């Protein structure tokens, strides 16, 4: 198990995901799985953390033991960590700051046209 917020793989857009930390070493290390839990109130699955498991069936069981001990969920997804491509934290500026100041992308930017109902 690794901490919640630690990215398990990162790649710049368009580059292959780094697999080095995930491949079994000497055939003796279980791969990492990312765990998503859905709570009982009809919400979407939420990332809860990650864990080690030899295969998908055991990953589900480990997830049950690790992340639903206190009644947190009614459904679990597990995904091999290596199947997830994540954005590069170093590319934060170019990736996520561009929408700032573009308030015309929000509905509230526009004034209501006269006579339009139900808005």
């Amino acid at each position, binding site marked *: 198990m690794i901490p919640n917020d630690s990215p398990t793989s990162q790649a710049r857009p368009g580059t292959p995901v780094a697999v080095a930390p995930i491949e079994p070493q000497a055939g003796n290390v279980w791969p990492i799985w990312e765990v998503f839990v859905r709570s009982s109130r009809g919400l979407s*699955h939420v990332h809860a953390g990650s864990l080690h498991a030899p295969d998908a069936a055991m990953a589900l069981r480990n997830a049950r033991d690790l992340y639903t001990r206190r009644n947190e969920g009614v459904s679990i997804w597990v995904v091999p960590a290596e199947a997830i491509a994540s954005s590069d934290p170093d590319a934060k500026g170019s990736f996520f700051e561009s929408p700032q100041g573009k308030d015309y992308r929000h509905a509230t930017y526009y004034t209501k046209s006269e006579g339009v109902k139900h808005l």
Partner: protein
Amino acid sequence: MSTTPETDTHSEETTGHGDISVGVAGAAGDSGASATRITPGNALRPEDIALAVSRGTAKPSEDVAEFALRLGDDALILAQRLGHWISRAPELEEDVALGNIALDELGHARSLLSYAGGLDGRSEDDLAYLRREHEFRSAALFEQPNGDFAVTIARQFVVSYYQFELYRRLASSTDSTLAGIAAKAVKEVDYHRDHSSQWVLRLALGTDESRKRMIHAFKVIWPYVDELFRDDELTGRLSEAGAAPQPSSLREDFDRLTGEVLAEAELEVPNVQPTPGGGRRGLHSEHLGYILAEMQVLAREYPGASW
């Protein structure tokens, strides 16, 4: 989405030692639930049984108390054994899995011993910490050493399939407290079956080494299976009263269901001589004394200690 629910969740987690019922009340109306929100649920707890016993609303007959002692001791001794795996399992995840199972068993033990103590006013702690070896009623299987991981899994496999058949029937006991404890326990034990059978399959069909160890583990554990299914005068009386099934009546389902997993794992039921047993009468193997010494030392060195 509002940010309030996140704040709520945070405060619940950080104040976790306080009133857990806040989790339920807080969950009622907000939609911003987190994956880590906790709720206590509403299952029968050992505390509820201790309370019912102290109020006199639940009191076991002498036979039921003795029977509860047997099952409670089985669960208690197994929990103590399994707890030893914490920090020693192949992976941290398996530490937690075995720890969860140990805690489930400990919960069953607490309920059963609290109820058994209702006969003469002894508490669960009195029964767990202040009885001597010959006063314990657990079968020999539960005190067997952990061995390697495969031996623990083999023991767990036998225990969980036995307890599932037992609790499944006990859930319709004429004794309502026993029935309540069993109804809760059977769901937990069902998961223990799944956990152990998954590992039996993986170890038996894994590498040459894991298969060799799994075969050896069943040879070590299987002699203790027979004792679980032996009837005696007590179970005869309880069975007539509808309070508990005869142990022998569980055997057919046990053999069939364990047989299915063993067949899938390409393993044979070991052909071994059963041990004489005697745990139900207080005759134990050499292992129980050491378990009790470790489990009871603090309570005996510092009577009445609390922390």
